[in-house]
């Protein structure tokens, strides 16, 4: 380290022009020799004694305020109980207010102390280049080579190579250990819990939906699969938005066979990064994801009309059971949610498969 500006005993040549606070030679650390505080030092402006006395009164007052606020903090803790939103608010204000005042008064006091009671400094110390001198570098270099030779690491090739060999698998071990952090994806991302005959129920209430009750065009519902209302893993893929249209409003992008009486079900999980596309504008039939504003046309197969999402919201085939409740006809035929490497152009494959069926 080179930050030693203070002259050593035999270092007269390097004595900087002015340095204060250099302990006199031969003193112990924090020694018992009288300190020479009042000596005038270049670059140091001593405060005016009268002003310092006035400042002391200010500092004292501030420290006393800090003391009182500290007491108030402890008192607030005892006095103000918590438990409901109002009492918590009062307790928060009392504790935080007294803490703020205490800290503020304390810091203000110290600032006045430094600025008006301590001397003002403008002292100079020398810098030195960070690099060590040539001799030191030489010595280190030579010692390194000597040590390396003594160790025999260079000469004994077999030893060196087997050491590196031994390190390789051990270095991999921590990575291997992380394997059980999770299962492999497999094909799980391609499926949801929806299957033929599963009832659509309203998110939150869990009520099944009578198709005949959901009959006002422009109506929208957030829908989950029956039996999975509280299974977050299932909901993260299977949540739907259900929209009722007049049949003539539906365009070619929507698969008509998969609707029931103008009711269409789309995945609610945005194809961009997976936020729920929860906003619906009735007049334009636009579904909007509030996270990054991907916008989908609900009348036209939820195709993207603006924003960063690259694919339409997948449509779920729905129908009704014997009692007129809405049910799923099958699972989605494409993966829902954000894109991933193994996904591929699932839409094209699905179109082809549908073409072969019909």
């Amino acid at each position: 380290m080179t930050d030693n500006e203070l002259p050593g005993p035999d270092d007269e040549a390097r004595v900087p022009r002015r340095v204060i606070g250099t302990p006199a030679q031969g003193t112990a650390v924090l020694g018992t020799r009288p300190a020479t505080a009042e000596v005038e030092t270049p670059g140091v402006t001593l405060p005016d004694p009268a002003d310092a006395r006035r400042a002391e009164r200010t500092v004292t007052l501030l420290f006393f305020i800090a003391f009182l606020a500290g007491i108030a903090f402890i008192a607030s803790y005892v006095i103000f109980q918590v438990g409901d939103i109002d009492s918590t608010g009062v307790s928060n204000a009392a504790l935080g207010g007294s803490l703020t005042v205490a800290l503020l008064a304390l810091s203000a006091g110290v600032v006045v102390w430094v600025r008006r009671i301590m001397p003002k400094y403008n002292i100079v110390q020398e810098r030195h280049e960070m690099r060590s001198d040539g001799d030191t570098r030489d010595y280190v270099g030579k010692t390194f080579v000597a040590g390396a030779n003594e160790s025999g690491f260079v000469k004994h090739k077999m030893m060196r190579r087997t050491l590196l060999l031994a390190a390789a698998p051990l270095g991999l071990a921590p990575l291997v250990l992380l394997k059980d952090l999770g299962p492999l994806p497999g094909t799980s991302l391609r499926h949801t819990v929806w299957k033929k005959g599963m009832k659509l129920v309203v998110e939150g209430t869990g009520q099944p939906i009578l198709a005949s009750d959901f009959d006002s065009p422009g109506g929208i519902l957030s829908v989950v699969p029956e039996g999975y209302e509280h299974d977050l893993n299932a909901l993260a893929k299977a949540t739907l938005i259900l929209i009722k249209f007049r049949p003539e409003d539906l365009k070619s992008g929507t698969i008509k066979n998969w609707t029931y009486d103008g009711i269409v079900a789309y995945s609610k999980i945005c194809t961009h990064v997976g936020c729920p596309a929860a906003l619906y504008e009735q007049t334009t039939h636009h579904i909007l994801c509030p996270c990054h504003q991907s916008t989908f046309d609900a009348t036209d197969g939820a195709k993207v009309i603006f924003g960063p999402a690259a694919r339409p919201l997948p449509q779920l085939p729905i129908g009704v059971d014997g009692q007129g409740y809405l049910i799923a006809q099958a699972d989605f035929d494409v993966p829902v949610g954000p894109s991933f490497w193994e996904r591929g152009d699932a839409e094209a494959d699905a179109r082809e498969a549908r073409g072969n069926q019909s």
Partner: protein
Amino acid sequence: MNETPKPIAGTASYLDDRLGAGSFLKRNLRKVFPDHWSFLLGEIALYSFIILLLTGTFLTFWFKPSMQHVIYAGSYQPLVGVGMSEAYASTLHISFEVRGGLLIRQMHHWAALLFVAGMTVHMLRVFFTGAYRKPRELNWIIGVLLLTLALAEGLTGYSLPDDLLSGAGLRITEGVAISIPVVGTYVTFFLFGGEYPGEDVISRFYSLHILLIPGILLALISAHMVLMWVQKHTQMPGPGRTEHNVVGAPFYPAFMAKAGAYFLFTFACIAGLGTFAQINPIWLFGPYTPADISAGSQPDWYMGFLEGALRLMPAWEINFLGHTVPLSVLIPALVPMGIIMTGLAVYPFAEQWITGDRREHHLADRPRNAPVRTAIGMSGVAFYGILWLMGANDWISAFFHIGLYETTIIGRFAIFIGPAIAYWVTYRICLGLQRRDQDILSHGVESGVIKRLPHGEYIEVHVPPAEDIAEHMRGKKEIPIVPGDEDKDGIPPKGVRGPIGKLRAKASKFYGTDHVPLDGDGHGHGHDDEHAAVGAGDKPRELH
């Protein structure tokens, strides 16, 4: 007081006998710290970090990092009987049933915002004053690592309460992670312990948030401080200040007391914010479910630029051979972060290569005196700032009544044009400020005194500038230029041969050319007429 009090002297001797601490103190008690307001910005981050450690430890006493499903039965009436994760329930418990819990939670959040903000402005100060130059490049790299880690620490932290807002952030994190080519699905399945959201991510983020990342932060911050201590702080140019000295107040007692006061002041500000400025009222958001979201969701400010990038991006996606590359996620998630962090990390080395300057620098540059650097920095700020604003484009749209899609489309252009404009404007401002310095040094400052000369001419008397300000201005350093001229045989000097060498010579000339030399009378537009002097300008002036 004339001698060290016995208890202190005794303890000191005891420690010195065992540690030899005396010689360290001898060297360092009066270590000089240069004074400048901008040198205090990094301290905000340092003190915020200390407050984060203290408040964070308090929160861990009650927080349960578990995604176990529980039915809430606490004292916050609107949520009683609602199913939620234990993490969310325990956060409600801290907020409503632990005295001071809400205060500490809010202080922790505010301190986190201030931590990243302090780091950011400190980094800008270091950049614009060139304080990253040799020998401080390594400390600069540590700083870039700290900033990156702080973002990760923030992300893992605000995901923990498991409320609807934090869940939205987590969902976006998942969407980004799964978009990574080849390994994306594996990364997400390993991170979440299977499919999103799973039951593991909160406890995993918890270990990262309270142990791994703060541990690394603490180690790097310590290294940052030690290097600053050893290399000594840079100083602004001024009277008596050179590349070979440090001028300022000594560590003990003045700087120590000031730093202590500053810590208390930062603490007081955070306590005040935690008291009076509500932040992250998780009880209003409700528990997380992947099926819901509230409109207008916003991340913490330091994630805003990534959010903005995601919003700006057009819907690009590539499908080939059964594979998908979602560019509309990958580019915004990786490119801006990559440009900013990589750009910051390599800047000192790029600048060294361009200028060929391998000297040590301890005198800080005034930003105007390195116009190209300052302009590059400001175009970076513009790039970041536009992305950041775009992260709130729904709010901008609602507040200023601009169409939502228009804000996005404007942003798509602004992200390219804005930095270019910022570059040009900054560059011109820098040269203008340099001209003003030159003008003040050569003609003095206007005194406000109008004088009538014997033959009737009126002039304004100019007086020399204050000595310390003049010294500050004269501290301008020449930026070296790699010699690029061919010798008489038409061979360029070593280091600038070949296409890359030619580029280097050009860049160097562009980077280092001083358009407003202080000693030159360089500005060619009749300066005499600028002053209030009435009449002919060739009369001797009062100055000089």
